[in-house]
């Protein structure tokens, strides 16, 4: 079996690139779905896009999601945080 190929001097960089690009694919799929969802609702006279834009600007929304945002960041940064602590 041939030696495993790596594009970068450190193979870990290849793994990281792979993770990031795979994550990009998931993000794109979600973006696409949300776009389609908003379009479908708009065709039924539910202007959810305007509702979203309006709500996003409200201080109440930012306050409501603050805890969720913090929890998200804690989960997202869990591994490097644990590694650095150790």
């Amino acid at each position, binding site marked *: 079996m041939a030696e495993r*190929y790596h594009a970068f*001097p450190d193979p870990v960089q*290849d793994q990281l*690139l792979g993770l990031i690009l795979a994550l990009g694919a998931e993000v*794109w*799929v979600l973006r696409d779905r949300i776009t389609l969802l908003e379009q479908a609702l708009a065709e039924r006279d539910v202007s959810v896009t305007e509702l979203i834009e309006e709500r996003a600007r409200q201080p109440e929304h930012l306050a409501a999601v603050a805890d969720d945002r913090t929890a998200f960041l804690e989960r997202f940064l869990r591994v490097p945080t644990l590694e650095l602590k150790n």
Partner: protein
Amino acid sequence: MPQLPPLTQHDCAYLDYIEGLKVYNYTRHVKTLLRDYDEKAARFEEEKGYLPSTMGEAATLIEPDPLYQLACGIQRTSQVLMWTAGIDSVKPHREQLLAGLNGSAQNEAHGRLELNPGLKLPAWYVENDIHLVPGGYWGDELVGAVYQRVLAVYSTSWRSGRDPGFLQAFAASAPKRDYRRILDVGCATGNTTFALRRVYSESEEVVGIDLSAAALKWAHASAEEQGLAITFSQRYSGDTGYPDESFDLIAGHFILHEQPPDSVDATVREVFRLLRPGGHLMFLEPPPYHAVPPQVAFLEDFDTRGNGEPFWGPFLSRDFPAVLREAGFENVDEGPLEYQEPGYWGSAALMRTGEFQPYNRWVTRADKPPVDRAAKE
């Protein structure tokens, strides 16, 4: 074509992303690498008095560039993601697809399927995941469906629509119009074989051979659906088992660079044996390294190490016409296929920059000496 399962929104968006990633990589990163190469080559010439003339010299100018490393990393990752997307899109329909394929295998309304479960697959074939497809082209019964699903993304024609015209052009480029028996070597899912059958509609028999039972099953099902009379048979190109002088035209598309040199040699000897005197061969492959600028050869050589094609570089570095002459063929000729494919991106991964290059589809042709000349010798 057998019915592939419908694409979900997830499938469409995922495949679209992958194609977009590849296109971005080629049209931005690779184009930048080529532009930067021209500047570096000019400095090389100032220092040494000549432009880089070998792949090795071009490599010294390109390989250290972090952008090259990024482009290679993106290309490899996009291939891995492409296959997983294809597999994921057919997996939920596995039982239904297999039932359809196995049922179709019994159907011989137009052609025939000959499988050989006892065929020993070469070690180089089973130990290497060609093109990075998990399990190779033989490991999964549904590899034919997966391949057909992602083929357009592989060639970055998913959104623009894949133009099959070049296969017709290749099939029609043989010297005669009235071949009796035609062989397609390494036919996979049959796309080239279909083109041969359509172009030579009056031929007695068109045969496609391949090592992969899974690919042949898909090819047969496709042919039956299209009403094409083709025999698909599971055989090794280096030792087919057919009698001497069985065919008068033998063709192959993108098959030789997937084999080690000794298997290429065995295939050439076998093709010589199988051809009738006066018969013709033609092989369509990526351009050999001697036919392209050194920086193009180096970028194309990524496929050797980065795309599960370890025999790519060894084949494209060889003097294949000399191999054919050594085997006894005459009128050996090589050059670009006469076909300008609109929107065609290129044959090798990192050279799909969107600019058509005439050498991208390279054909090598040769004739078996006619009876009288062979008898005299």
